[in-house]
C-alpha cells in the first residue's frame, strides 16, 4: 500500500491499477494468515515475541513518519513510549474503564504531552531539535526512575512498593490469553497503520512533503508550517502512546529498565534500516527490534551482535542506501530476478546463433 505513496503522492485510494490490486490481494491474504491461524500455531514464546514486534512496529511507525515524511529526527521515542505506558497505567487504575478507552486515553494523553513539548521545540530545527529530544528523553527517564509506574498505590503517582501482583493494565475480556491478545494488538496496529496512511495520502501528507523539500517554498505555497509540524508531532506521539498502552497490557508489570536510552538509539537504527520513505519500513523495523534478538537468542548467540549490526546498519544506510531495506530489498530482488532471467536465457542464446 505504501510503496506507491511516494512515487505518486496524489494518488487517491479510489484509482487502483491492476498492480495495486494484486498487491492489495497479497497483503490481505498475508494479514488474514497472521491474524487468524498463525497465533494458534506458535508456541507461547513466539506469540510473546510477535506481540512485542507489533507494539514496536507501531512505535517505529511514529518515528518513521517524523523522519521520512517531515524530516524531523527524534532521539527519544522510547521515552515517549514509557510516557504512554505510564498514562495507560494511570488511567487503568483510575477506574474500570474498558480497554479501548484506556488505549485511546493513553494515545490522547501522550499526544497532548508530545504537542506541549513540540510547540517550543519547533523553534529549533535539525540537529538542535534532535538533541533536545535526547535531553527530554534523559529527563523523562530520570523522572520515571524515581516515580515509577502506577501499580495501584495511593495518590496521583500511584506507585506502591507493596507488590500484590497487580498487572499495570488489565487486558480486554475478549483477549485475555496470549494468542487472543496478539490478534487484538495486530488489529489495533492495522487501524493505526491505516490512520497513518490516511494522513500520508491526504492533505497533511502533501504539506509534510512540501516542508521536507524546502521550508521557505512550503511557506510561500501557503502551507502552515507550524500547524503541520505540530500535527506530525501529535500524530507520532498518539501512535507511540497507544503502543505504550498495548505494551503495558502485554507485559503486565512495568519497570523503568524496559525503556532505556539505548533502546531509543536502537529504534532510530532499525527505523533507518527498515526504510523511512515507506510505511512498510516500520514493520521491518519492528521485526529487527524484537524478532531478530529472539532468533539470535534461540540460536544461542549474544544479542550484542545485533547492537553492533545495527550500528553498522546506521552507517550503511546513511552512506549508501537512504531508502533502507524496504526500498533496497525489492530493488535487489528485481536485480536478482533479472540476473536469473538472463542466466536462464543465456544457454539458449548460443544454440540459436549456431
Amino acid at each position, binding site marked *: 500500500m505504501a510503496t506507491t505513496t511516494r512515487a505518486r503522492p496524489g494518488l487517491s485510494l479510489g484509482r487502483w491499477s491492476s498492480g495495486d490490486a494484486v498487491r492489495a490481494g497479497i497483503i490481505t491474504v498475508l494479514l488474514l494468515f497472521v491474524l487468524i491461524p498463525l497465533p494458534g500455531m506458535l508456541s507461547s514464546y513466539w506469540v510473546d515475541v510477535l506481540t512485542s514486534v507489533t507494539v514496536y512496529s507501531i512505535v517505529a511507525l511514529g518515528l518513521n513518519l517524523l523522519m521520512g515524511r517531515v524530516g524531523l529526527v527524534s532521539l527519544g521515542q522510547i521515552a515517549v513510549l514509557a510516557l504512554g505506558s505510564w498514562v495507560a497505567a494511570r488511567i487503568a487504575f483510575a477506574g474500570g474503564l474498558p480497554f479501548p478507552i484506556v488505549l485511546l486515553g493513553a494515545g490522547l494523553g501522550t499526544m497532548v504531552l508530545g504537542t506541549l513539548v513540540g510547540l517550543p521545540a519547533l523553534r529549533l530545527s*535539525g*540537529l538542535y531539535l534532535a538533541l*533536545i529530544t535526547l535531553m527530554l528523553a534523559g529527563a523523562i527517564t*530520570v523522572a520515571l526512575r524515581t516515580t515509577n509506574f502506577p501499580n495501584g498505590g495511593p495518590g496521583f503517582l500511584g506507585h506502591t512498593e507493596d507488590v500484590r501482583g497487580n498487572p499495570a493494565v488489565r487486558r480486554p475480556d475478549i483477549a485475555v490469553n496470549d494468542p487472543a491478545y496478539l490478534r487484538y494488538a495486530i488489529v489495533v496496529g492495522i487501524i493505526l497503520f491505516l490512520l497513518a496512511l490516511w494522513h500520508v495520502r491526504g492533505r497533511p501528507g502533501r504539506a509534510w512533503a512540501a516542508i521536507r523539500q524546502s*521550508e521557505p517554498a512550503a511557506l510561500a505555497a501557503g502551507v502552515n508550517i507550524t500547524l503541520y509540524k505540530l500535527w506530525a508531532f501529535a500524530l507520532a506521539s498518539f501512535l507511540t502512546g497507544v503502543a505504550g498502552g498495548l505494551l503495558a497490557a502485554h507485559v503486565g508489570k512495568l519497570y523503568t529498565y524496559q525503556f532505556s536510552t539505548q533502546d531509543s538509539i536502537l529504534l532510530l537504527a532499525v527505523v533507518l534500516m527498515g526504510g523511512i520513505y515507506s510505511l512498510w519500513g516500520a514493520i521491518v523495523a519492528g521485526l529487527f527490534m524484537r524478532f531478530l534478538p529472539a532468533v539470535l537468542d534461540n540460536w544461542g548467540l549474544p544479542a550484542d551482535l545485533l547492537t553492533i549490526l545495527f550500528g*553498522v546498519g546506521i552507517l550503511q544506510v546513511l552512506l549508501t542506501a537512504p531508502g533502507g531495506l524496504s526500498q533496497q530489498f525489492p530493488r535487489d530482488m528485481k536485480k536478482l530476478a533479472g540476473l536469473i532471467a538472463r542466466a536462464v536465457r543465456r544457454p539458449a542464446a548460443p544454440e540459436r546463433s549456431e
Partner: protein
Amino acid sequence: MPSWQDFQPFIITGLALGGVYALSGVGMVVLYRATGVLNLAFGAVGAMGALIAWEIVNNTTWPDGVGYLVCVLFGGVITLLYGVLFGPPLAARDALVKATATLGLALILLGAMSWIWSDKARSMVLPTTNWSYDLGTVLVNWTQILALLLGIVVTIGTGAFLRYTSLGTAMRALANDREITATLGVPVRRVEAAAWLGSGLISGAAGLLLSNLVGLDAATLTFLVISSLAAALIARLESITVTLIAGIVVGLVTALVTPFLSISQYRDMAPFVLAIVALLFLSRHRVVSVSRGAH
C-alpha cells in the same frame, strides 16, 4: 533548608564532575566547529577506553600507567579512524545526518563492550584517588582536583592553540567556511584529521576520569555524554569558554541539589533541564519557519 555544612562535600564532587563535563564539552565543540560533526559516540569511545584500561590494570602484569595511556590513545585512534573513514563521504551532508552516523559508531562500541565485558558493574580507582587533601571538613582527592584542572587547562590550551598556531587558525577557518578555506590551499582533510585525533584523545581522558568519579559501566558512561552535551549546547556549540563555565555550572547544580531531600532523587535531570531551558531561551527570538541549517 540544609546547612552550609551539608553542601561542602557536594561542592567538591560537583566541581570535579563539572570539570569532566567541561572537558568533554570542549572536545565535542572543537570537533563540531572544525568538521561539522557532533560526535555522539564521544562517551562510548571513552567508556571502551576505560574498560580496556581496567582490563590492563587488573588482568595483566603491565604497569598501571600503560593502561591509562592505552585508554587515552584508544580514544584518539578510534575517533581518528572513524573521522578518516566516514568524515569525507558524509562531509557534504546535513549536520543532523553526520551526528546520526556517529550514533552508528556508538552502537558498534556499545555492542562490543557489552559482548566482551558483559554489563557487570566494575570500579576503577586511579592512583590519584589515594592521595587526598584535608580541607578542614571535607576530603578532596587528587582525581577530583585533576578533573577540574584538566577541564580548565584543556579549555585554555585549546583556546590558545586555536588562536596562535597555524593549525588552529586553519581549524577556525574551516569552522567559518569550508569551501573558501579549501580554496585558500588549507589541507582540509589533514586539518580535520587533527581535530578528530585531538577530540578523541580528550574523549579517552574524560572516559578514564569518569570511570573513577562516576563508575565503570558501559551504558552509564556512554550516555553520560548527554550530560556533557548539555554544557556544549548551552554554549550553542560555539564558544569553548562558555562550554567550560556551563560544564562547571551543570556539574555544581547537579551535585548541590543532593542535600535537598525532596528533589534529591531528581538531581540527574539537572543537566537536561538546564540544557532545555538554555536552548529554548537562546532561540526565543527565532522565527518558527526559517530553520534549515541554522546553528
